[in-house]
């Protein structure tokens, strides 16, 4: 590890496959046709939304492993995270696998944390295959962080909409032809004093800016070296703030920045600034961007998943919202 927090993976771990399951609202979006499974029922036939979220994660991992004609025992570790208290979706879904499990929590940045850890295990020759995944569900997140679904409350215009979706990735030893995770930067926790719990994008933008700047410096690259710089779930407002912040650092993100939260929804109801949640960057990258890397339409991208590290208790106690962002460079392999 050089330049504190940036990891260079010399053995070129690859993302061998990805699998996504999303809810009904996500299926109707522009990206709808790219997802592997689109649920018609956001309860997924379960008695509660929490169980549905867990099942989404379980099924996405099961189908991912099956698609590669692997068995549970071929996978060395499952690394997954979600937004619920005690990350129950991640832990409970691991019950169904005969695979060692690491649960991670970095709010909506969990997927990049999982992919970084997965790639590290592969790179260090500690594992041959790891499954990295993240899930979120609109109904469970609303209930944990906000109000009951049927309460007639107004969502403010800076609010975002938690994505119902699970995305799983198989990170494996180097194989030619697959997108390589070449480096990763572990984010610092940054807090500029935003206290509005509805304004997650604003809370996370400084962390995204910090991580992008650090990653570019450590890897000795500039924004134009990447076909795309993809942030997780800053939303429209957060993306704008990120660009403003980056400009002050002398970075121009305007030409090649996209945000998964902005991509995922057609803004026609109360999504306002776009999607959010651990599932947001996870499903958008897995279904839409990863295949483009695989088919070499995109050569190199920087995925920066962003997380707002608040809890309902912390915000009620008047704490501001710390943000974190982890970045990974994914590029087409040269051989």
């Amino acid at each position, binding site marked *: 590890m050089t330049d504190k927090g940036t990891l260079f993976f010399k053995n070129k771990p690859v993302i061998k496959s990805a699998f996504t399951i999303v809810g009904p609202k996500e299926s109707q979006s522009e990206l709808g046709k790219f997802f592997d499974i689109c649920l018609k029922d956001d309860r997924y036939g379960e*008695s*509660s*939304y*929490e169980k549905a979220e867990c099942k989404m994660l379980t099924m996405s991992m099961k189908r991912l492993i099956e698609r590669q004609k692997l068995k549970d025992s071929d996978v060395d570790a499952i690394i997954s995270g979600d937004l619920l208290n005690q990350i129950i979706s991640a832990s409970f879904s691991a019950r169904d696998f005969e695979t060692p499990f690491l649960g991670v929590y970095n709010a909506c940045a969990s997927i990049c944390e999982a992919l970084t850890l997965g790639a590290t295990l592969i790179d260090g020759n500690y594992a041959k295959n790891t499954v990295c995944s993240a899930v979120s569900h609109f109904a469970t997140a609303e*209930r944990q962080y906000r*109000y*009951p*679904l*049927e*309460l*007639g*409350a*107004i*969502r*403010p*215009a*800076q609010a975002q909409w938690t994505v119902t979706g699970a995305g799983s990735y198989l990170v494996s030893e180097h194989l030619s032809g697959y997108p390589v995770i070449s480096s990763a930067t572990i984010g610092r926790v940054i*807090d*500029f*004093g*935003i*206290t*509005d719990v509805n*304004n997650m994008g*604003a809370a996370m933008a*400084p962390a995204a800016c910090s991580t992008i700047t650090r990653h570019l410096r450590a890897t000795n690259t500039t924004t134009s070296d990447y076909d795309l710089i993809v942030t997780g779930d800053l939303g429209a*407002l957060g993306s*704008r*703030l990120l660009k*403003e*912040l980056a400009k002050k650092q002398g970075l121009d993100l305007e030409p090649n920045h996209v945000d998964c939260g902005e991509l995922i929804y057609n803004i026609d109801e*109360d999504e*306002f600034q776009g999607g959010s949640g651990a599932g947001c960057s996870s499903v958008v990258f897995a279904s839409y961007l990863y295949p483009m890397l695989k088919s070499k339409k995109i050569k190199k991208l920087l995925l920066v998943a962003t997380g707002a590290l608040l809890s309902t208790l912390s915000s009620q*106690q*008047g*704490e*501001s919202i710390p943000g974190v962002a982890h970045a990974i460079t994914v590029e087409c392999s040269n051989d």
Partner: protein
Amino acid sequence: MTGKNNANFNKEYVELVSKLTPKTNEPKTLFHAFWVGGFICMIGQFIKIVLSSAFGLYGDNLAGATSMVLIFLSALLTGLGVYDRIGKYAGGGSIVPITGFANSVVSPAMEFKSEGFVYGLSAKMFTVAGPIIVFGVIGSVATGLIYYVLGLLGVIA
């Protein structure tokens, strides 16, 4: 370290955020709130007239029965998944009338049904409405005391 007005507080950034954050279009939301709120009151008035002319109710009985019908309708609409849609449009207009109170009790009850009847539904039923009840009771006690004292002083009859 944390929270407002502390070491990490980046004034420049927070000001930028408040400048870029979209503002509520107040004339529009106020219009929505007032016409829906007024319309709910009109329905209440209509129920009152029907109850008084059809069942001969009057005074406290009439007021109580009218509230009960409104509460029932609101609970029904909440259960059918309609009231939250009205709320999204009307905001305060559908929160302030008694129907909003009913919605704030019924919606958590529905939400927490999955945690069981006692620890889920019954315990969580008042998570939203709890403060309203607390301040309602405190307010009524205070009003009663003032009324009593003013009566002793002979200010009011």
